[in-house]
């Protein structure tokens, strides 16, 4: 599987300004935070342990609601977002974030046949079609790593 990009950062929110010149990384030597959202705990645990092994700060959320709360607490550099979740699905999470003016890059994770279509539909920056391998996952996240994010 390869990671494809669904286009540049979406919308006017991406227009560079003095305060938001580098929205994705902290650039302060700290670890980059990645938010992983999936209601399947096995996937959540696996993805988390892979990414933490690569030096990311991983925040995991098992539902759409938890995901929004996590973003409110600390904005990640990228969100890995599962599409099919009960109550609040990935699509609703993406919409809620955009409507709040939060333009964190999103990488859609889905086991559906039409992963790319989903990514386009929610205006995501990329997608991971399940099942994905280790390298695909890392490549997908790598792009959003800040220059000083890697410490080891």
């Amino acid at each position, binding site marked *: 599987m390869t990671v494809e990009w669904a286009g540049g950062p979406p919308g006017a929110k991406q227009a560079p300004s003095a305060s938001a010149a580098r929205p994705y990384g902290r650039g302060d030597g700290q670890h980059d935070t990645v938010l992983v959202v999936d*209601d*399947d705990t*096995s*996937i959540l*645990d*696996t*993805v988390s*342990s*892979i990414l933490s*092994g690569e030096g990311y700060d991983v925040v995991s959320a098992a539902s759409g609601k938890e995901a929004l709360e996590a973003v409110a607490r600390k904005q990640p550099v990228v969100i890995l977002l599962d599409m*099919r*979740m*009960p*109550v609040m699905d990935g699509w609703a999470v993406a919409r809620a974030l955009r409507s709040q003016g939060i333009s964190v890059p999103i990488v859609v994770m889905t*086991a*559906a*046949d039409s992963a790319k279509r989903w990514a386009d539909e929610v205006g995501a920056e990329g997608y991971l079609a*399940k*099942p*994905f*391998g*280790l*390298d695909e*996952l890392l490549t997908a996240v790598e792009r959003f790593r800040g220059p000083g994010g890697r410490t080891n």
Partner: protein
Amino acid sequence: MNAFELISAVTQIIYVLIFISVALRLARQPTRAHADMTLFFGATAFVILVSRVAALTGSAPPWLTTVEVAVLMALPYMLLRLVDDFTHVRTALKRAAELGLAAGIVATSVTVPALPTPVMLYVVLYFFVVSISCAVAFFRSARRSRGVTRRRMEAISLGSILLGTDILIAGLTGLARPDDRAVLQALGQLLGLGSGIAYYLGFAPPPLLRRAWQEPELRAFLARAASLPRLPTTLDIVRDLEHGAASSTGTAARIGLWQDDTSKLRFWEEDDKTVDLEPGTHFAGRAFELQRPIFSTDPIRDNPDGAAAYRSRGIGAILAAPITAGERRLGVLTLSAQRPPIFAASDIELAGLLADQAAVILESRALIDDAARVRAREEATRLKDDFLSAAAHDLRTPLTTIVAQAELLERRAMREPTAPADIAGIRRVVREGKRLAGLVGDLLDATRLEQGGLVGEREPVDLAVLAQELCAHDAVETSSCRVEASAPVVGEYDRRRVEQLLQNLIENARKYSPERTPIRIRVWRQDGEARITVEDSGIGIPAADLPRIFERFSRASNVDDRRFHGMGLGLFICRGIVEEHGGRIWVESEVGKGSTFHVALPIADEGGSKR
């Protein structure tokens, strides 16, 4: 010529015209009813002719007067015969009329040419009474008929009343004072004209009037027709069409539909039993084969094969019309009545119109059915696509963990061969691998089930023991499982499948129940069946979902389907296992209180409880 003479002449012309019209009809269709009509109006024309001749010559020979009076007296009797042609006239009434007629003829021929007052009164009264009886009979018959036939009989009834009254007045004229005679004569002439017009409308109505009389019946029929093709089944449509045709024609109506598979016409009895008819046999089969209406006023003679049925149902006339839409022969409309309708031509016309309308309705129905079939095919394709998508989705989810986690384990092992094993990661792979195996098994079972080959070799199985084993094996600290069984319940089952059934039900109960709430299993014998219930106090199933709960990919709407992993195949497979064993499965449930799944399975033999 004064006004009286003009009216008289018009009346006489009308009667002669009717005579010519019915005589022509008799020539075309020699039926008893037409013969009786011709006789009646022939007699009238004769009386008219004689009176004209007498008026011209000034006097008539006495024998002619005798014949004239005899024929005049015979008129109401002939009317009675006409009544008898389409409705039953009591034999006593017929005999009385014949006796009265004979007595009248004898009395007049003896006293001719100067009829004494009592004889005159007798003749007039006889005429009046019989005419009015006929009028009443026609009127009652009209009440039972519909449409054109009804209007025509009403006209004839009116004509008979007017004619009877006319003769009564003519007789009284002779007895009246000279001053009153002119008035009575005028009245008599008007009544005569009225009866002539009424008879004309009844016996030979112009086509325009006939159509006008037909219209309300057809309109009523058409008003219902628009909604007919949407009725649930074709049989419902047939029933409604039969009802409509029966009430439009005042007869009993039956519709037979052509069956392509058997090449027969199928009729439905009142109790929905079917009767199949070969084309070419009976009236319906003949009308279907010849593709034209067939009319019989003597069905027993014309179709001896059906004689028994005609006798038992008292059918004296049958009309069969083909129901055909363009080239497509759809069936036959059959109308049957106890007496041959006196007005066959208009009834055949009406039956033809009704049959055409039925063809339109049945053809629309066929189109609706075709559209439904196409939709069903599309729906089946969609379901299959949905199934593949859902299956792919559900299989990819555990695969994601297995692939990614295994690669991570590999990478770690390569980078740090001496580091302690990542037990949590290994467990994840194992757990998701098992989950994947379960899903694949369910998918295979569901596919086998559709081919009807889920249950294999059977052996004696004690359900009570099996339930206890499963319960004990499944007991985990978070919930308790209790089996209530007082005696062995043994049947011939596929052990593996029955085990799977109970396992699925127990897992379901556990999955949808709060932790630490008990699951209760009961196993017992009842009414020659093995009975099992699995009861939980979980979230329950909304009533709206109950009918679909055993269907493929069905989950109750209150189940959040990510928390409860599975493909929605568990209960579908359970139902398959039970049904292939010849048993039943059902569920009782209340949201928030819990669910009880019931299973009934056949028991091996009557001894049942082998030890």
